[in-house]
Structure formats: C-alpha cells, structure tokens
C-alpha cells in the first residue's frame, strides 16, 4: 500500500469503517511508515480532544418554543368518545378506566406545558396495548424492569392493601425525554406513575389541578417530582398520593 492510499484509508481505519482485510493492510503500512503512523496518532488525538472538549451547541429555548408553536397543537379538549373507543377496541388492560399518577422533573416555567403533556401521555396510555410495557403485580418485578432504561429509579410500591393494585410499568415520553410510568388500578380506574429526578431537594406539598377533565396531583419529595393525573375524584386521588407518601416514609 502506498502513502497516498493510506492517507485516505487510515481515516476509515480509525472510524471503524474498514473490513478486517483492508484494516490489516493499512495497519501493515502504518507499522512500516513513520509519517503515516504520526498522522494517525495525531488524528486520533484530535478526535479525542474534540469529543472531550464538548463541541456541540444547545438550541436556544426560544427556538424550541417557536418550533413547538408552529406545529399543530395536541387536542385541547379531550375527546371522551375517542378514549371510550380505545376501551371498546382494547385489551383487558385498556378496558380499565383512567387514572394516572405522574412524577417528573421540571422547571417552574414549564409547569403548564408539562401538565398538558402529562395529560396527553395519560390519554395515550389508555389506547389499546399502550398501558404497560411490563405487566406484573409484583413490585420486585416492576422496579428492576426500569433499570438501565432511565436516569432515575422510580419508586415502585405495592399499595394493594391500601386499595390500589399495582399492575405494571411503562416508559413514556414527557417534555422531550423518557420517563417511567408505574401503573396502578383502583376499581375500574387505572393509575400511571411517572418518575424522574428533580435538581432540588425541596419538599413541595401536593396540589391538585384539573386539565381536560382529568385531575392532576403534583408534589415533590426527596429529589423526585410527582404528578398525578386521574379521572378519579379529587378526594380519591388525594387518598392515593397520601397512601403512596406514607408507604414511602414507612421503614423497609
């Protein structure tokens, strides 16, 4: 192999784009050619310096907002008939009615948008086959399932004795990032629990809002933000979050 050939092919070598045969040819050439060896060493050094320097830019928030605003918005009023159609078509799981408990990280100025996204995620989960990725009534099955899928390990607590049955878990998508949903059920109502981290450790008392006919209960505790979305009455949703919090505080 000539230096002219190696000049091009050593890049394919360092980028992992060469088949084994050609890679050996290039390596043979480099072994006997100080000039090409020095070049390859420098290119690798540059490549490493570039990846470690952090050469990416972050899109301005205003750009994201402009793009969001230009796209058609999600339905403002939930179409109850569409939700019911999902039940009629769906599996046994989707035949359950709707409750969601959601916990995610967010900045204060994003709260309204997040709440709307949370409701959308909740509605999506009610469509046939969308409710759970892992189906289990065992917290020791659901919790490990999240490992490696998220940057946070959502608390998974069996509240069957308190009247809320654990039925599974799901990855969902809120605020342009993956979050975990733990799914519970009360009577004919489904509960989704979405979890991710918050940067603040401050504790925030639970507060309930109503969006698109669903109740959302939100609180923060020990580095996690929680959002509850539900078509349960507010008092039952409050009961759920209280049971959940007291179980979190319970030893063991």
């Amino acid at each position, binding site marked *: 192999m000539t230096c002219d050939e190696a000049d091009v092919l050593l890049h394919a070598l360092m980028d992992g784009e060469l088949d084994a045969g050609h890679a050996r040819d290039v390596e043979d050439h480099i072994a006997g050619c100080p000039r090409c060896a020095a070049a390859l060493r420098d290119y690798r050094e540059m490549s490493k310096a570039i990846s470690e320097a952090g050469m990416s*830019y972050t899109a301005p928030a205003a750009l994201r907002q402009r793009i969001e605003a230009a796209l*058609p918005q999600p339905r403002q009023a939930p179409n109850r008939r569409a939700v019911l159609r999902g039940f009629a078509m769906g599996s046994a799981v989707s035949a359950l009615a709707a409750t969601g408990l959601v916990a995610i990280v967010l900045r204060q100025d994003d709260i309204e948008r997040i709440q709307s996204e949370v409701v959308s995620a909740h509605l999506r989960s009610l469509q046939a086959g969308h409710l759970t990725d892992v189906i289990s009534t065992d917290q020791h099955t659901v919790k490990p399932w999240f490992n490696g899928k998220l940057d946070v390990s959502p608390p998974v607590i069996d509240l069957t004795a308190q009247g809320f049955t654990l039925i599974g878990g799901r990855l969902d998508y809120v605020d342009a990032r993956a979050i975990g949903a733990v799914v519970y059920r009360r009577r004919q109502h489904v509960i989704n629990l979405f979890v991710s981290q918050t940067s603040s450790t401050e504790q925030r008392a639970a507060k309930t809002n109503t969006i698109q006919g669903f109740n959302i209960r939100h609180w923060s505790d020990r580095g996690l933000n929680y959002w509850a979305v539900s078509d349960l009455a507010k008092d039952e949703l409050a009961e759920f979050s209280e049971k959940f919090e007291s179980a979190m505080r319970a030893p063991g």
Partner: protein
Amino acid sequence: MPIKASDDPEKARRFREAALPYLNDAYTLARYLLRNAADAEDAVQECYLRAFRHFDGYRGPAMKPWLFAILRNVCRAEYARRATTPVSAIEDVPESAEQAPLWQEAEETPEAQLQHRWDADTIRRLVAALAEPFRETFVLREIQNLSYREIAEVAEVPVGTVMSRLARARAMLRSAWLAEEEQQK
C-alpha cells in the same frame, strides 16, 4: 408555506417524539454550516417545518440523517440567498481541489506531532476556518458521529467522496492545529 390547521394532531405528536430529541444536534450542525447563531436558528426552524410537512412520507433512514439532509438543503438555500457575498457561499469544490494531494507539508515535517489540547472555543474556530464541504463532512463525522454511509446520504455524494473529504478535512485541521501551537510558542 404555513402548516394547515387541519393537520392531524396525532401526526404532530408522532413528529414531536421522533424529531424534537434531535433539536440540539440540528442546531449544532446549522451553527457549523452557517457560522452564525441567528441564521442557524432560522435554518433549524425552517428545517423542522419542512420535515413536518414531509413526515407522512418518512420511512427512514434514521431520523437524525433524515433531518440533517433537510437541514443541509435549507442551509444551501440560505447560502444561495447570500450569493451576493460569495466569500461565504457553499460551493462544490472544483474537481482539482478534491483531488489535490491531501497533505504535503507533513512530508517536510514527518515528526510533527500534536502537543496541545485546545479548548472547545479554539477548536471551533479552527473547524470554522475549514472550507466547505470539508467542514460539513468533518462535523457530521466528528461531532455528530454519523457513519460514512449516513454522511453520504446527507451530503448526497458517494461514500468514496466522503472518505476523501474527511481525509482532507482532518489533514487541514491538523495543519491548523500545529500552526496554532507554533503561534503560542
């Protein structure tokens, strides 16, 4: 062309999930291609609106190169608009330039070796000084981590051209890198 109100919100939701995670990548590429923050913002916004309009027909390749191909066309259009200032125009490099020997000075200084790790700002300045289309190929490979085949799709050239452009880009950057070290001495 404005997006019609009749467009399906479900389509918008799928598009958001598929395309918005690459917003920072798209913005980064636009910054390197256009070398101007305001133009990059405009180009990325236009890219996303075009991508949404064509999203019905999207069947792959991977979302990132697909978006990049659209973004690159938007950036080229922007350059065409700027054609009155040809200094910054993206132009296809003449054949002769593509086929010129890659790195001649290295033969004179075979022992030349990078000594210094530059910070991001310095590297950005060195990369920004690369001529198109070498800068484009280099950024797609080194900063966006695209494969040669994906780069070929984005830049609409054969893989062999990607390889020769990348080789030349790295050789030029190495030269600039060493020159920067000389200046600091």
